[in-house]
């Protein structure tokens, strides 16, 4: 029975690995699903908002180390909140200056935000340098948790998982249980009619975009616990994230969760049998094949056009 428990331990750790990938994907995809699913805007600079969150966390960590060492163990919570607001504020500005002028031309938003992402990447490079940086993790995030001898689960993974559950819950509450969420959903279903009943759709759009960017910022903060941050850290994930959103069905949060889960688990399961790059090729190809058979994604709500 020895081999069985060993196999179980490996399976559990591999499954947990998949869960970590799932969390980063989901945190990124949540912001994107709000922006793309609810507003129909393709934000190619979404990855850069993640990078903003990651750099914010890094700056907070450096500042704490230098000026307020006693705050060390708790700085991470402040960093998460700051990441949310800084990324959200920049998102608000971007919507005001750029996106709001392009709502009639979705393909053009894609190109314009790609230009924005180039500018932002170069700005990161000018400010923080081309080298990757990493925030100093508080002690309680390091090390691992061992439920049995053979199983070894890293604590930072657990933390990211907790954060993901919390963020998902909050977004669900905001979208489905608040007045603002009601306005957002009304605007998605029928913009003209929403305007007629007195919803300020412009403001709703701006807040939605800012919220989506803020969530990406939080994803960035979570990202620092797993890897180091470089100017192009966020752009590496952008295509995967878009596929997650499209695969899940653009305007369904439940679909986003389900698709992030299946893509992440498929990826890490296949990595067990073949090289990482081939696992990625197979996962992405499978997603595209399924999308060809079912273009509306896994879950979709019917909207009258």
């Amino acid at each position, binding site marked *: 029975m020895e081999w069985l428990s060993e196999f179980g331990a490996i399976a559990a750790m591999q499954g947990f690995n998949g869960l970590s990938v799932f969390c980063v994907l989901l945190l990124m995809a949540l912001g994107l699903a709000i922006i793309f699913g609810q507003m*129909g805007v*393709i934000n190619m600079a979404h990855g850069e908002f993640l990078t903003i969150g990651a750099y914010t966390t890094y700056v907070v960590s450096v500042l704490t180390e230098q000026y307020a060492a006693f705050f060390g163990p708790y700085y991470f919570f402040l960093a998460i909140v700051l990441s949310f607001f800084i990324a959200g504020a920049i998102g608000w500005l971007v919507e005001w200056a*750029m996106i709001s*002028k*392009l*709502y*009639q*031309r*979705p*393909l*053009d938003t*894609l*190109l*314009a935000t*790609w*230009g*924005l*992402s*180039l*500018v*932002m*990447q*170069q*700005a990161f*490079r*000018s400010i923080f340098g081309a080298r990757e940086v990493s925030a100093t993790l508080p002690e309680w995030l390091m090390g691992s948790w061992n439920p049995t001898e053979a199983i070894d689960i890293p604590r930072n993974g657990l933390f990211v998982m907790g954060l993901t559950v919390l963020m998902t819950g909050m977004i669900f509450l905001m979208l489905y249980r608040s007045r603002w969420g009601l306005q957002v959903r009304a605007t*998605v*279903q*029928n*913009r*003209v009619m929403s305007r007629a009943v007195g919803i300020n759709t412009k403001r709703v759009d701006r807040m939605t975009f800012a919220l989506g960017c803020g969530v990406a910022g939080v994803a960035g903060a979570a990202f620092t616990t797993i890897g180091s941050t470089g100017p192009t850290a966020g752009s590496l994930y952008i*295509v995967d994230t*878009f*596929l997650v959103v*499209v695969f899940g069905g653009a305007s369904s949060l439940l679909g986003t969760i389900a698709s992030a889960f299946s893509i992440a688990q498929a990826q890490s399961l296949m990595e067990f049998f073949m*090289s990482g*790059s*081939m696992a*990625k*090729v197979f996962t*992405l*190809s499978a*997603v*595209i094949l399924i*999308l*060809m058979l079912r*273009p509306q994604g896994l879950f979709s709500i019917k*909207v*009258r*056009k």
Partner: protein
Amino acid sequence: MNPTLDKFLGGKQGAIGLAVLATLILVVFPLALDAFRLNMVGKYLTYAFVAVGLVLCWGYGGILSLGQGVFFGLGGYCMAMFLKLEASDPESTKIQSTPGIPDFMDWNQITELPLLWQPFHSFGFTLLAVIAVPVILALVIGVAMFKRRVGDVYFSIVTQAIALILTVLIIGQQGLTGGVNGITDLKTLMGWDIRDDSSKLILYFINAFLLFGCILIGRFILASKLGRLLMAMRDKEERVRFSGYDVASFKIFVFCVAAAFSAIGGAMFALQVGFMSPSFVGIVPSIEMVIFAAVGGRMSLLGAVYGALLVNYGKTYFSETFPELWLYLMGGLFIAVVMYFPNGIAGLWESHGRKWLGKLKRQSATPAKPVPVATVPAPNSQPRELESTP
């Protein structure tokens, strides 16, 4: 004028624009530039093939493909595979543990030429494959997507994902494709050395003539009924469908044409530059190719050529002299073109250049000859409105 010829040339204005571009590419550049710079212009012109294809499928057909690099790359790889096999004959590779196979295969402990490479010993097959492989892929993607009425944004994202998949695949299969370095050290084409200056000049002219061929085919497509249908589909797809046209097959056709153009560009790239690597296949190069078309003017075939030349020249110049500034400029250009000049240089020429030319003509009897940027009249200078709001 003969009506068929008229269709190709696009009327008097089209003929003048074409003549100006031909003078620039066939006479001015070869006389004014040294061999090295001319080879660079030739490289830029291979991107112009992609941009011309994008004008057809994006500007007129409304299909934004973010995966044109895939077709460019496939065309280039087909040509590079043939050239590589010729460069690795048993004589020149005798120091390898297995002579007669490409060097990177030897480094990856491959002892036998893979089946995929076998047919590329034949030049005829290679020429066929350069066009056929990308077109078949485009056909499969097109049939799968357009028959199911997947359009717009979804199509862009899926093509982008395909670009990512192909890059990862090429880099991952090192023994088969040369990995991240690509296929390098291409020397001869059927015994003809492609590296010395005189053969580079010949290749430049072959490239230029092929480009003009593509432009003329593009003109012909746009002037025919198909061109008008494309525009109608872009603006009111449902109405065209209700009129009884099979929208999907037109889209598939124009997407395949764009893929074929890109593939020719890719093959000429491999011939002129002497290597092919995954860095011309992925997401970033594919989007850059869209920018060439956008800067030149998404509605102008000739504008796309100018766009490819200008953006690439700017890229070379700025990344040599101010590497820091380049990405800011490129990003800024992207944003500015999309937001304020949706019809690019061609649109600016239409709205300002002509007036200025007219003024100049009135002022002096012998006007200085400005460089007309494009002459295909943009049918609607307003940015097109897509039906996207629910």
